[in-house]
């Protein structure tokens, strides 16, 4: 098949298993975001794809060919590092031309390609500047251009935007995504920022403790998380213990949720309800009754913290649907059946 395949890849450092039996298929031209908390093995996995780290077992296959025994410098890929790793002794043009120079491309062709890439990253005319004279965003673009100079089949980025300030980061996310779509290149980005993943990815791979917890399109990850770890990591959510009563109905905080049934063969679990899906009403109308403990009005959204049966539930509303609750008010909580996801505990 055309694309990248990771076949049962593991990486052990002594007794510690950094990456545990990862299996993943990435079709050609897909934008993948590997997402997870620090230490989950996502960077190690990326480094194994690049050949900077050797897998303890398993294979990396690109377009049907086994990459595992190929040394890094013969893999013909492009990689952007967290530190960017621009060469300080070379100017912008020389940095971008480096992979071409290594491959013995003649000077004229080098120059032409560098000009093309500088135009692509909107830095035409910057070729003769020293790298140290560029701003953070410009350096970022130079690192991307250098990685793409040989038009690689695989484009890898390790936390590429983490050094930029929030505004610039959001702009670069959009730019990177547009660039990837324009070039149709298979791209893998490692990040711990879920907004970044949601913005850019076709496929989000959530990793935890060395394993893939879920690999799916962003909205599916958000709407249908595979387990409590994923639900908690992607966005914010309310995780509540759920039990089956005698009739197989799901009960949360001691009350049955109308219309919600436990999956067959399951007695216990956790439900995940996104804060924007939690409705607050008059105390008598809710599934569960509680008391407002804190209201955080952020202008664009309002977060209401409600305590019910010893648990804190967060509801998010917009000012337009202002419910007007303040701390101390008794409220009723409605958990809409269609927005509750039952997960393994």
């Amino acid at each position, binding site marked *: 098949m055309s694309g990248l395949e990771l076949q049962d890849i593991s990486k052990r450092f002594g007794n510690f298993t950094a990456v545990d039996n990862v299996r993943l298929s990435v079709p050609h031209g897909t934008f993948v975001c590997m997402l997870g908390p620090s230490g989950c093995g996502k960077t190690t996995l990326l480094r194994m794809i*690049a050949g*900077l780290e050797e897998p303890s077992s398993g294979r990396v296959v690109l377009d049907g060919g086994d990459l595992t025994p190929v*040394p*890094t*410098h*013969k*893999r*013909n*890929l*492009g*990689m952007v*590092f*967290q*530190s960017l*790793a621009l*060469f*300080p*002794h070379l*100017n912008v043009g020389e940095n971008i031309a*480096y*992979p071409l120079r*290594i*491959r013995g491309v003649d000077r004229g062709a080098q120059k032409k390609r560098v000009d093309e890439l500088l135009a692509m990253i909107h830095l035409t005319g910057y070729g003769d500047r020293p790298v140290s004279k560029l701003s953070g965003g410009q350096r970022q673009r130079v690192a991307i251009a*250098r*990685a793409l*100079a*040989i038009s690689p089949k695989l484009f*890898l980025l390790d936390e590429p935007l983490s050094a930029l300030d929030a505004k610039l980061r959001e702009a670069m996310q959009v730019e990177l995504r547009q660039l990837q779509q324009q070039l149709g290149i298979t791209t893998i980005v490692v990040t711990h920022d879920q907004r970044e993943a949601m913005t850019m990815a076709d496929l989000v791979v959530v990793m935890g403790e060395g394993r893939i917890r879920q690999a799916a399109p962003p909205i599916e990850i958000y709407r249908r998380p595979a387990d409590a770890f994923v639900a908690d990591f992607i966005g914010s959510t309310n995780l509540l213990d759920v039990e089956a009563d005698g009739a197989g109905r799901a009960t949360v905080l001691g009350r049955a949720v109308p219309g919600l049934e436990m999956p067959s063969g399951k007695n216990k679990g956790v439900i995940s309800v996104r804060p924007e899906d939690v409705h607050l009403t008059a105390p008598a109308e809710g599934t569960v009754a509680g008391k407002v403990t804190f209201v955080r009005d952020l202008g664009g959204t309002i977060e209401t913290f409600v305590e019910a049966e010893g648990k804190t539930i967060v509801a998010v509303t917009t000012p337009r649907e202002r419910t007007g609750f303040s701390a101390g008010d008794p409220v009723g909580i409605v958990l809409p059946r269609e927005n509750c996801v039952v997960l393994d505990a």
Partner: protein
Amino acid sequence: MRREPPRTIADYAPLVFPALMLIVFFVIPFSTMIAVSFFQRDQAGFYTPTFTLDNYERFLSAFFGGVLGFSIMLAVLVAVVCVAVAFPFTYLLARSSRRVQTVWLVAILSVLSLSEVIIGFAWSTLFSRTAGITNLLVAVGLMSEPQALLPGFGAVLTGMVYQALPYTILVLYPALVRLDPTLLEAARTLGASPARAFLNVVVPALRNTIVATLIMVFVFALGSYLLPQLLGRPQHWTLSVLITDQAIYQSNMPFAAAMAVFLVLMSLALVGLTLMIGGRREASA
């Protein structure tokens, strides 16, 4: 860091002590030496203060010119060999685990505690026919009979490199530890083999450090006068040996001073030239 320039005389106060020390222990002795180099030697005693260029004239002979040339060549060679050996070694050391680094650094520092005399005699034993390393080669079967490897140029060079190597490593170490390891990885992902990446990226990124280290070892080796005598033949003696000989054994202070002044000028000129070439390359880059 930007600081306000000093305004009043009191602001210069912290400089008084270092300036005084420099004057007393450097400027005055050095000026005395320059002055003595123009004095006349007195056969009976020490020297008589006059102004003569005889000492410099005598120095400008083929013999002393040859010794000066040899001294500079030897010092350059020691510097180049030291950096060529120490740079890859220190690079690997900086990439290894903390424990390995500590063990090596302690071992290297312990070499610094050896005096030039001990180093000289240790190597003269190691290079001797009766107790030297060639006996090991014979035992292994690589040589048919033990040989004396000294006196000779190779022995002088080995001894001096051995002496200067710890300094070289200690000067290179901080710069190599600070070097961003992803620079090398980036070069590899861009298509450079590990050896090529090292030459393309690590060496140019540390060019200034390398030049500074070369100069330091060069100056250090230029002053060596014991090892060439212990391990070499008279034709391997450096200018420092001759200066010692003139000053101490021949009691010809003015001539020794003239040679010393000349040596300092030559080293300054070489260091200046190196910096100038380095600076020009930087400007063009």
